């Protein structure tokens, strides 16, 4: 006699099967699935961390799985001579290289110089910059990067990355709450002083339902890896862009602070020292990155779209003092790049602007490498 399907039994078995996969199997493997990657194996590792708002044109996408991000980067593949110094460069979108090709970024231009360090050993620079302005985001990436044996770390930043309220709002930070929480704990930092309602994930977030976006992003990252390998493109370059504003408003407030009232303790300076402590013995160079000093309407009150002059001047003063107190290797290149070498924002520069910065950095890098 022919077996007849019992729909209720079939439905029950299906439900049990789906629940086992979703609630047990996926949580068990989701923490390590990001390490599975075709990069540095089937396709070359990326020159910079994956980031894009236009994936289909850029063959790149923004995702929040740190393992997958690093696994797709050339830093996780061994390419350079074994005796090379590995220099990691951290920072925001100007370091990552918005509107710049990989070879035009700071890391790209420094690699082009084929520098050598002590004992004639070559230097290999890695671009670990990532868009969005937050020192905590940089600290998170720094912590992750330590697994890849840096010999030096260069950390570029600007004032907009410092305000306490910016620390925990970067999407990369918000989507890695446990890593951030652990990092703050180890560094002796108080998470709640930056954000009271920082959302933590639950068990349900680790189930298939909670992980569906993460898993899909990891898969898409691999597929776009093929396009990266085929085309060498990792960013969409529009035919034109709106230049950073030169004519500015007369607004004098910076965040919620009025002129002369910026509390220095509301700038997350301690994140810098936390970074240095985390790097344990790896030399670090801290760099205040160049900004656009505009010469248009209201430029006597503001440097650019981001900064009123008073706030930026106070920040530089505080940073100078802080770095001296903490004995940090600190370089201030805020006014190094002329206005015509800025592109679509007050911190994004042209390849020529990057060249100016790399030229200034070279002697300091060579001087501080430890044989």
């Amino acid at each position, binding site marked *: 006699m022919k077996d*007849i*399907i019992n*729909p209720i039994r079939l439905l029950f078995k299906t439900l049990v099967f789906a629940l086992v996969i979703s609630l047990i199997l996926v949580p068990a493997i989701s923490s390590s699935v990001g390490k599975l990657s075709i990069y540095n194996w089937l396709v070359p590792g990326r020159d910079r961390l994956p980031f894009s708002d236009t994936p*289909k044109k850029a063959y790149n996408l923004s995702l929040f799985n740190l393992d997958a991000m690093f696994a797709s980067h050339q830093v996780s593949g061994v390419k350079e001579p074994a005796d090379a110094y590995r220099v990691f460069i951290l920072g925001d979108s100007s370091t990552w290289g918005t509107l710049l090709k990989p070879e035009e970024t700071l890391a790209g231009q420094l690699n082009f110089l084929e520098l050598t360090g002590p004992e004639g050993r070559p230097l290999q620079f890695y671009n670990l910059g990532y868009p969005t302005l937050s020192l905590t985001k940089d600290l998170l990436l720094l912590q992750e990067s330590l697994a890849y044996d840096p010999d030096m770390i260069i950390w570029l930043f600007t004032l907009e990355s410092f305000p306490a309220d910016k620390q925990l709002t970067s999407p990369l930070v918000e989507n890695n709450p446990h890593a951030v929480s652990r990092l703050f704990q180890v560094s002796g930092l108080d998470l709640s002083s930056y954000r009271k309602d920082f959302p933590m994930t639950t068990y349900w977030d680790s189930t298939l339902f909670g992980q569906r976006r993460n898993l899909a992003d990891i898969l898409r990252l691999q*597929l*776009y890896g093929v*396009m990266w390998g*085929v*085309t060498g493109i990792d960013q969409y370059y529009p035919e034109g862009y709106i230049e950073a504003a030169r004519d500015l408003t007369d607004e004098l407030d910076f965040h919620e602070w009025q002129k002369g009232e910026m509390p220095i303790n509301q700038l997350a300076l301690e994140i810098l020292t936390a970074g240095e402590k985390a790097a344990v013995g790896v030399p670090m160079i801290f760099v205040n990155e160049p900004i656009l000093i505009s010469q248009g309407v209201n430029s006597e009150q503001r440097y650019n779209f981001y900064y009123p002059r008073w706030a930026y001047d106070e920040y530089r003063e505080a940073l100078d003092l802080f770095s001296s107190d903490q004995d940090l290797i600190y370089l201030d290149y805020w006014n190094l790049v002329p206005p015509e070498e800025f592109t679509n924002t007050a911190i994004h520069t042209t390849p020529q602007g990057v060249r100016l910065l790399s030229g200034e950095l070279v002697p300091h890098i060579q001087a501080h490498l430890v044989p």
Partner: protein
Amino acid sequence: MTIQEIFVLIAASLTLGFIFRQTKWVNLLMVASIIFIYWLQPDTELRYLGFWLPSISIAVMVVSWIFTTSPEIRNQPKQFITLIIIFGVLLVLSSLRVLDPGRAWGFVTMPRLISSLSYVLIAFSFLILLTRNKKALPSAGLWGVFSALILIFLVLKTPALAQKASQAWRALAGQSQSLATSSELSWLGFSYLAFRILHTIRDRQAGRLPDIDLNEYIAYLVLFPAFVAGPIARAEQFVASLRDFSGSFSDDLTAGSRRILIGLFKKFVLADSLSLIALNAHNALQPTSPMGGWILLYAFSLQIYFDFSGYTDIAIGLARFLNIQLPENFNQPYLKPNLTQFWSNWHMTLTNWFRAYFFNPISRGLRKKKLSVLAILFITQISTMVLVGLWHGITLNFIFWGLWHGLGLLIQNRWSGWINKLLPPSDKKWLQDLRNGAGVLLTFHYVTLGWIWFALPSPGLAKDFFAILFRAVL
């Protein structure tokens, strides 16, 4: 179709399939299909076109049925009842502007009630009068419907004409004509609808079409699982399947579910993933090496197969839920050792359509003219494949694609004859396997290279992409 839409169709097919098996109400399938035409039709920038296109489809379907049916069948009371049911469904759909002003149910934007109701009333008064006519209708009417469909087809598939039509619509609707584009004239499922109607017209003219009830005819033309992407069943087979309730729901449930799962995997996992790396107009000139170009091309070749065959699997599975056996459309086409076999296993129902209504009649006609076999082959193969190309769009690239396959079929025909004489099929299995394997590789690559014309919008771009692929040898 989105995955959400497919899940709605799955739920509908299961429910309707269960009820249909109990009641045998064909009207149920017809009504559901009519509703889904409106639901699936995408809204375009052209004002209210999303309502008018399906409405015209329904009128065309009824007219086609009237002309392809004998007066005895046409005058039966049950046909009149079907017409009234259609009329009622359209009245309800027309009222959606009032019933669902926020469009929460996902239907297209409905025009003002006065326009839609006027259309429904006028169209159906005319159709009812035509249906109730006891006299035989002039055969010229069949040619009239035939010509109208071809004309609409030409307009929709020719970018310049589609843009003109779009401009005309914009002028009528009081919209800016300068914003008109050819792509906004999107008539969902028209190609398949037209081919099914043309098949019934030609079979009626040849005296091969059996009498079909109006509800069966409409269910055949626009059955919702197969409405968007085929397959193109034959009317008599469809109706036979519709009337056959010998299969068990349990078997259909199992077989249908399996096909749908396979289809979903092909379409939403394989094809959609491959689409990220498949050849297109944006990435065609970006590969930095010939190997990169081949990767894009292979990805496109596989993507188009998984996409299309995935949709077919879903359609066949959904139809199984409804107690209907749709014909197969793909049978491992990329594993066939020559181009003729490829075309016998790729989009089989379309190929069969062209074979039945173009290739065979043309071949017969040319044989009477006592042309040489080579000349007949040349004319029939080339013209058929160019026509298949034009079915996808009336552009130079699709003509080149058709020529590519037409010439390929011709060359393969001559080559097979020659090689079989020179090297007759071997008894040795390994030798035969080797020969087949080489044939599969060669055929796959010929078809894959042909996709360049299909994937890229201009011959110039296609030529440049060929240059990238063969940069190392050129």
